[in-house]
């Protein structure tokens, strides 16, 4: 029996998405189907032998790496499977919390389609078609992010508009780059194509000044949906970006390009951090924190010559855990305090929902890079490397992260601020074990990641073997 990797990790999830749509009214059934398949696909990708031959008793299944699809080819080589496993694993994690109140019904099928599209983007040939697949993911995501607010809200339009504008930039850059390899280094076309490519990625990754849709969408969308989208899309885009670095030598060797990427990264960290620090709305603050994380990814790419790509990849799992916890706790807080959760509305929440409050603070601190928590090992190594290039790069980046810490303290102050006429520290805990058990588990996981990073972060680095020039 012969199968192919794209069939398993691109077509099957699409079929499951259709099944989930059909069973959307039966939420439990839909949840079980989605989770079983998603985690199943993740486990299969993680444990499939490198020879791509699966033996189940007398049955031997041979899996090919390519699939022809409307004249195009999708190739998922075995080196890329850790990334596929990670994408499906994290999608599964979000699907687990898709039964929360007011998560749109469309979330399950949509998230599966987005993950499938991004998986296809990892291996589509010609590789520029990945831009179309990413655009597909963007278009598909629109209904789920507009769900709670039926009326038109400009954040979604801006998101759609900017992401769509990015696509032609990437396609044009790809077209320009086809001839660049043969050009002499002083040709102006090289610089022009790099600028076009850079603009495309900057718009995709919501780099300042293209960031405005991020807080707008985060403010109005469901936290589970938004946290998933803002995790999965940049992850897919960043991995897709590795293709360009791998293919074009002039991009890899240009010191100026890496300088600009580093500088942009630091600017994003500082801008996102300072903006987070002054927010009143929790969901908007989350949006700005995501800009900080984008900044860290760019900084890591900018330090590619010193192992930065490893750190960029190692940040993905930590980020996924932090975003998930953030999305989960915000979603639960929304059910208690309403859709518009600001620092004013959650006053005294720690005495009513202590686990939720702790979970949110911990998620924020983990993303910020507090020692003991998941992202700390990578961030301190990344920042020290940045500081070894230039002390100001490292110091400014840490200064940007300060914004996240400052917001955490403001959050803590609000959680413990007494409401009116509340002088006694009376605890009215309104939480149930099934609600806070995931938070406890995630806290333990975040600490384990923070203490033993070498045990958890290694798998994803292996995908660099799929990019021979980047190892």
């Amino acid at each position, binding site marked *: 029996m012969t199968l192919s990797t794209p069939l398993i990790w691109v077509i099957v999830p699409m079929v499951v998405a259709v099944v989930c749509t059909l069973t959307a009214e039966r939420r439990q059934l839909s949840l079980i189907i989605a989770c079983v398949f998603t985690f199943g696909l993740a486990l299969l990708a993680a444990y499939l032998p490198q020879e791509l031959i699966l033996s189940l008793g007398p049955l031997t299944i041979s899996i090919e790496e390519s699939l022809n699809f409307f004249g195009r080819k999708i190739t998922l080589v075995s080196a890329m499977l850790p990334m596929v496993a990670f994408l499906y694993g994290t999608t599964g994690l979000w699907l687990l919390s898709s039964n929360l109140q007011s998560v749109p019904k469309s979330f399950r099928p949509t998230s599966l389609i987005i993950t499938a599209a991004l998986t296809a983007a990892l291996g589509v040939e010609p590789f520029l078609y990945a831009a179309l697949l990413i655009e597909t993911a963007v278009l598909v995501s629109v209904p789920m992010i507009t769900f709670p607010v039926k009326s038109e809200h*400009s*954040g979604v339009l*801006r998101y759609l*508009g900017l992401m769509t504008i990015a696509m032609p930039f990437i396609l044009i850059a790809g077209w320009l780059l086809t001839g660049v390899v043969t050009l002499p280094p002083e040709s102006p076309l090289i*610089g022009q194509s790099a600028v076009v490519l850079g603009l495309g990625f900057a718009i995709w990754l919501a780099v*300042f*000044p*293209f*960031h*405005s849709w991020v*807080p*707008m969408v985060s403010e109005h969308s469901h936290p589970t949906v938004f946290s998933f989208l803002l995790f999965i899309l940049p992850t897919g885009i960043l991995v897709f970006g590795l293709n360009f670095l791998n293919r074009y030598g002039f991009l890899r060797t240009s010191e*100026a390009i890496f*300088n*600009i990427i580093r500088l942009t990264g630091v600017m994003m960290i500082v801008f996102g951090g*300072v*903006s987070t*620090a*002054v927010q009143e709305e929790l969901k908007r603050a989350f949006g700005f924190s995501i800009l900080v994380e984008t900044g860290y990814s760019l900084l890591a790419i900018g330090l590619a010559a010193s*192992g930065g790509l*490893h*750190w960029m990849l*190692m940040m993905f799992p930590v980020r996924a855990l932090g975003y998930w916890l953030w999305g989960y706790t915000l979603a639960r807080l929304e059910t208690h305090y309403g859709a518009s959760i600001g620092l004013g509305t959650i006053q005294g929440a*720690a005495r009513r929902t202590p686990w939720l409050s702790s979970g949110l603070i911990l998620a924020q601190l983990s993303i910020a*890079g*507090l*020692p*003991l928590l998941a992202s700390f*090992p*990578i961030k*301190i*190594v990344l*920042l*020290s*490397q940045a*500081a*070894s290039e230039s*002390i100001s790069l*490292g*110091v400014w980046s*840490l200064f940007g992260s*300060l914004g996240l*810490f400052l917001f955490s*303290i403001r959050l*803590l*102050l609000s959680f*413990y*601020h*007494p409401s009116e006429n*509340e*002088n*006694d*520290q009376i605890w009215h805990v309104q939480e149930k074990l099934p609600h806070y058990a995931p938070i406890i588990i995630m806290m333990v996981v975040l600490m384990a990641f923070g*203490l*033993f*990073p*070498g045990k958890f*972060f*290694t798998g994803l*680095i292996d995908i660099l073997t799929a990019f021979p020039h980047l190892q």
Partner: protein
Amino acid sequence: MLILAPIGFLLIACLAVFILDLVHPRYGTSWLITVTAGILAWMIIIFSRLRLPTTVALFSWDHPSLNQVGKLSLLLDYQSWPYALALITVFLAMVFTDAARTHFDSRPRAWAASLVIIALGLLAVQSGTSLTMMTAWVLVDLLELFLLLSLQETTQFNQRIIIAYGVRLASILLLFLGTMLGWAANGNFDFAQAPYPAGFIFLMAAGLRLGVIPLNLPFLREPVLRRGAGNVLRLTPVAASLTLLARLPGEALLPEAGYWKTLVTGLLTLAAIYAASRWLVAVNEIEGRQYWIIAWSSFATVSVLNGVPQSSIPWGMALILPGSLLFLYYPRIQPTNFLLLIGALCFLGLPFTPVASGWSGLLGGGFTLWTILLIIVHGLMVLGYLEHALKPGVEAGVLEPWERVVFPIGLILILQTMIILGFFGWPGAFTLGVWWVALLSNILILTALILARRFGISPPYFQLPANSTIKKVSDWLLPRIEPVFRLEWVYWVAWKLYYFFGQILKVFSSIFEGEGGILWTVLTLALLISLLTGGGVN
């Protein structure tokens, strides 16, 4: 293993006491478990003096991509051993004296909390790398935050507790910054070889945590657990910071950064003067505890700035041990009051007493204006201690017979430890020291006592008569200059700046997210590109 055993004993005891209290509360059994764990830990730490330095690797991040820098280890050396011993002694003294405070905050849950705090404190003082120290600080701080917020019964201190946590967090971030810059300069390093500016940043981290750089007093009143467990809770993070000071290289500041040294020494002296004067007039020792901590911490920090980090240890010991003697001395039993006076001998700084080796840290390069001011501060601290120590107590009859035995044991244990440390706590502990500075300080103290008597003021109350002019002037002046000393205006300015920038960013956001946002985006992009190309990046 010698390093881990005390921590293990304490954590196991904590679990046992907690479970016992949950399932079948028994005060006596819980107390016995706590004391047994404390004694075992104390004996092991005493024994480990024969095996210094001892190190144990906990684990490492162990991945090539993390550059092998992430190593977590514990180190018991001549700098950390005195603090480890002091911490466990204070804990044991707390448990012994708690026997006489059954009507106050002496509860098995408080012992369980103290057990875990001390275990983490030992982890922090024995941190072998900055990474271990950061981890331990985070744990201690989170635990302290949790305990303070969950144990207090009113909400009035919540804001102060969280701000105090914020300050601690800032000190951890300074440690982060120092480690980051140290790695950038040298790769892996230990505290004693911390390169510039990492060493200086570590010093700032410890100073911020101790509340001396810049002066910060989050708690104007103690929120909860004033005695007993409260003392452990207050002093453990302090000990962890003092260990960092003791481990820093002598040349934490480069010679060419002299202005920094002058500035920081000035700030420290200011903090010390303010704290000592507040300590002297504090209503009681508990209200004055934070000033006690700040004044001695300033001495320890100045010692490091002067290039003699080893001299920070005696000042640290003066802070922890005689301080605890006073703070744990409740209820006051008149016949045992003399124990406090023996405690005072330990920080008078006389030759061959524990603090004798500390004077060289204050002198540093020479006798300066700062030295004179710090000698005066020393005098004020001693006078304040005497005032609190000489307050009358009650008769021993108020205690149960067994409490009458156990209570003084706790206090004597502190005195014994001070004597042990005075003899061989750290290299050069038993020394003549800079005897003339000690003489100068003690002459000042004696003169103050004599003058006080002449003005009709006699211990235990160094308070001026209510109708005296000086008292009237000071009553008018002190509340007015106090905010200046407490540097609250600095924090006010910082808050206003933060608010100002916040408003600017909000305007910025509303422009970008408004109807014309896309146009503004394009315009900003054009501006950025022109700026970048104008800057020579083509």
